[in-house]
């Protein structure tokens, strides 16, 4: 490509360099956590962790295409650690919007994977309406005092920092009074309580924040510009995370081929014409979604914009709910049970409940349809009653 020509490294010289370095350093596998830590430190030090980043911050200023070359070479030998300029949500957000002091302090540890992180976005009163958050951060000298409650936080118990949005100005419209912080989690003012989900699992936490201290240098972006920083962070998140949807949980394999066909065969109902129609519908939806995703990726490569990406989450939500329904239909009375002795029932029931993780979490299906209607199809927005008034005056639950 034209812009690559201006770069000091050619694709081929780069490829040789990575190969040589890997040949010299990659042990073939990592046996322990200590091994892993040592390896990550080495990758960061050799500037392979974020090759597309500026040299100032442990990068090599490579083009995106050259970054892929590095990734391919690492992947070829099975070595982890590179490509974090694409995949490391925390480090990318910090690089883009953090203070110099915070970058100095955290970028290298984040790239080495030494810092536990979590997201402090949603609140009980602010789910779909994330800009309606009421957690507050009040400036006191060289730090902020934070008070409020966050929810749906994964890994909060082990996190060193949380990426936090909090309100710092209550007299401007909702989107304009929000700021974005790296909040230190290991302090008395931060209490983490596991949140038991509908499925009985506890992957998430509630985080109660009471007079917690956040140094001013941990502010990302300007004061009151947190909504913009959040959009940056969410964009990174979306570009990295796949569907994230979990299927059956039992882990007990269902035999060869298409799982629903195998399940129906095992249950002795594969010849039931009704069941066959339902299987076709669900497997069809799954394949259509895969085809849509493939087409979206092809479109992206060709540079044409694609409506398909935004449809994936909505499609997946429907697929999961439908698959749960059909699994139930296949099992009949068998779906009354649960637990490890009844893996098929466990799968159907888990899926029935966990499908809401996709249809509610990360923006409900209803919000997704708004987004598709407005951003993809260009349909006009609804009147927004709280957009332009001071947040103090906004109606809340």
């Amino acid at each position, binding site marked *: 490509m034209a812009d690559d020509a201006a770069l000091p490294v050619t694709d081929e010289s780069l490829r040789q360099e990575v190969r040589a370095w890997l040949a010299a350093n990659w042990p073939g596998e990592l046996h322990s956590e200590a091994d892993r830590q040592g390896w990550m430190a080495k990758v960061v030090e050799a500037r392979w962790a974020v090759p597309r980043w500026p040299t100032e911050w442990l990068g090599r200023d490579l083009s995106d295409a050259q970054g892929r070359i590095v990734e391919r070479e690492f992947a070829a030998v099975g070595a982890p650690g590179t490509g974090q300029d694409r995949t490391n949500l925390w480090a990318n957000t910090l690089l883009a919007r953090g203070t110099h002091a915070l970058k100095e302090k955290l970028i290298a540890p984040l790239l080495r994977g030494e810092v536990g992180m979590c997201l402090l976005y*949603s609140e*009980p*009163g*602010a*789910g*779909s*309406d994330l800009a*309606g958050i009421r957690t507050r951060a009040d400036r006191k000298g060289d730090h902020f005092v934070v008070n409020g409650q966050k*929810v*749906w936080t994964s890994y909060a118990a082990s996190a060193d920092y949380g990426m936090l949005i909090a309100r710092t100005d209550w007299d401007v419209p909702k989107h304009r009074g929000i700021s974005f912080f790296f909040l230190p989690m290991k302090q008395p003012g931060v209490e983490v309580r596991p*949140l*038991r*989900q*509908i499925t*009985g699992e506890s992957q998430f936490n509630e985080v109660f924040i009471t007079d917690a201290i956040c140094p001013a240098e941990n502010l990302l972006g300007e004061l009151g510009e947190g909504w913009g920083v959040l959009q940056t962070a969410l964009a990174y998140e979306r570009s990295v995370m796949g569907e994230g949807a979990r299927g059956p949980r039992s882990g007990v394999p269902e035999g060869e081929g298409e799982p629903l066909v195998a399940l129906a065969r095992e249950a*002795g109902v594969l010849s039931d014409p*009704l069941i066959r129609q339902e299987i076709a519908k669900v497997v069809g939806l799954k394949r259509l979604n895969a085809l849509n995703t493939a087409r979206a990726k092809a479109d992206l490569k060709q540079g044409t914009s694609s409506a398909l990406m935004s449809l994936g989450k909505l499609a997946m939500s429907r697929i999961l*709910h439908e698959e749960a329904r059909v699994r*139930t*239909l296949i099992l*009949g*009375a*068998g*779906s*009354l*049970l*649960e*637990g490890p*002795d*009844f893996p098929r*029932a466990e799968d159907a*029931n888990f899926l*029935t*409940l966990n499908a*809401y*993780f996709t*249809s*509610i*979490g990360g923006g*409900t*299906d*209803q919000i997704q*349809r708004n987004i598709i209607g407005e951003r993809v199809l260009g349909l006009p927005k*609804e009147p*927004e*009653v*709280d957009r332009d008034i001071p947040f103090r005056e*906004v*109606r*809340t*639950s």
Partner: protein
Amino acid sequence: MGTLTAQERLAFQDSVRRLLADRSAEADVRRTMETPSGYAAELWAALADIGAVGLIVDPEHGGAGAGPLELEAVMEEVGATLLCSPLLSSGVLAAGLLQTLGDAEANARLLPRIADGSLIATAALTGPKGGWRPKDVAVRASADGAAWRLDGEASFVTHGQIAGLLLVVAEGPDGIGVFEVDPASAGVSITPLPTFDHTLRLARIEFQGAAGRRIGAPGWAPVEAALDLARVALAGEQAGGARRVLEFTVGYAKTRIQFGRAIGSYQAIKHMAADLLLESESATSAARHAAVQLAAGAPDAKAAIELAAFACADAFVKVCADAIQMHGGIAFTWNHPAHLYLRRARADAQLFGAPDFHRERFVAELEAAHG
């Protein structure tokens, strides 16, 4: 079965409603559903005291002598509060089966104790595949002199692990028959089954030469009659549950504010609620109609029961499923009651036949009705 006046029925339903509002609140349900027995003995006694347990039992055997109408009405309250109890097993299925079989000796001996709640009975109806047709019975009865021996397996036996009396449906040399079995007797092995609906109790029971006592005459008809009564009861439970879930969901939609407006002001939520109202009201109509037709012994009672069975099952599941979506994140937590209703709805949709089974039989009734 007798029938109360409309006024008596309303008064009775009201007394059940007050009792359950008081003692089958969400916290009670959550506590009880995690106990091994799955029911609260004091509440069970109170239900017996006001006549709910012996509702359909003849007055001569200590019951209230009511019928499907009263049963359906009570079950609406049961569904609304997710009552944890063996009412359906003992007070409906077992009592209904005994009364249909009409074995005077057995009835005199068993019904009074069922009606006063001191004996919890249940019926073992289906085998390991779970189906409610004669061919799904997987216990065999063989004559052993004047006595009977039972062998085989019954599964999905509701409240089998806490029952003091098993009414076992078994295939005998003269066809399907019902046999009284003491669960504590030799050759009876009871395994509790873990249920997705924690308010329900199911068991698998193996019989190895267990002693059984024949009740009434052989034939599938009494079993089907008892099942139909249970289906009407279940339809009432489903209708009552659906109504309650819609009620609290609409309440939430009125008070939950996002983007400066109650979420119920958005068409996405409002229109779901309108559709669910249709589901819920239709379920109520179907359940009550099935009860009326069964009480009247109407020729199309069977069609009405099949209709109620699939319509109420689907409605309860749909209302619960959509209600979670309408609540958003809060209902994805264990502490929110919505999933308890969804679990119950899914259980109710399987017991005594899944919706597609009832739809198939509904069409058979339509065919039979007109040449």
